[in-house]
């Protein structure tokens, strides 16, 4: 991966991490730790909010795995 691509990937990771804050907000929590603690409650309130946060966490992990 060229340095330019690496920088763009890092930029996307930064944006994705900012997005995670929004998704946690929509799920009614502030941190991923709190999210997992309240997982059942969030699922019952809104399955979308639960799956969207999980998907976004996995998305960030995927981006970070590419940053090698």
């Amino acid at each position, binding site marked *: 991966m060229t340095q330019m*691509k690496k920088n*763009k*990937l890092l*930029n*996307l990771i930064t*944006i*994705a991490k900012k*997005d995670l804050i*929004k*998704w946690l*907000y*929509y799920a*009614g929590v502030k941190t991923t730790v709190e999210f997992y603690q309240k997982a059942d409650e969030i*699922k*019952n*309130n*809104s*399955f*979308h909010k639960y799956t*969207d946060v999980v*998907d*976004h966490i996995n*998305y960030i992990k*995927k*981006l970070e795995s*590419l940053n090698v």
Partner: protein
Amino acid sequence: MYNTTIKKLIEELSTIQALETSIAEGYPDILDGIEFTEDYGVDFRQTLELEEQDFYINIKKIDEKTKNIKNYAVGLISRDKIINQLRHDDEDHHNSKKQVKEANPPHHKHEGKKERIKGSSGTLSDLIRDFKNILD
């Protein structure tokens, strides 16, 4: 006449639509010219801050034959009420999923496989049209 917020939304959707073919080919330039790998190109999530809502688009799968984006979700979330104002995706409605046990209230429009309104299930151009109709 669309206001600025709607213009931004439509532009964003149009940009994604214009890149649909390149996404399918595995080398999309969705964000600032970045070249995606094949693994990268089939998993794209982004939230766009609008004036009163957030627009989000999640793409997980591209049909290699038809080049259509599949397994997607696009929608609008009200920042004040923290609810989905609009959501399109191609998954089963969550009330149909056993694990939900019908606990999820119908708090937002949802056009899953089983509750899809006519014309809302196809390509991004269909979605753009629906967004225009709803937000106009």
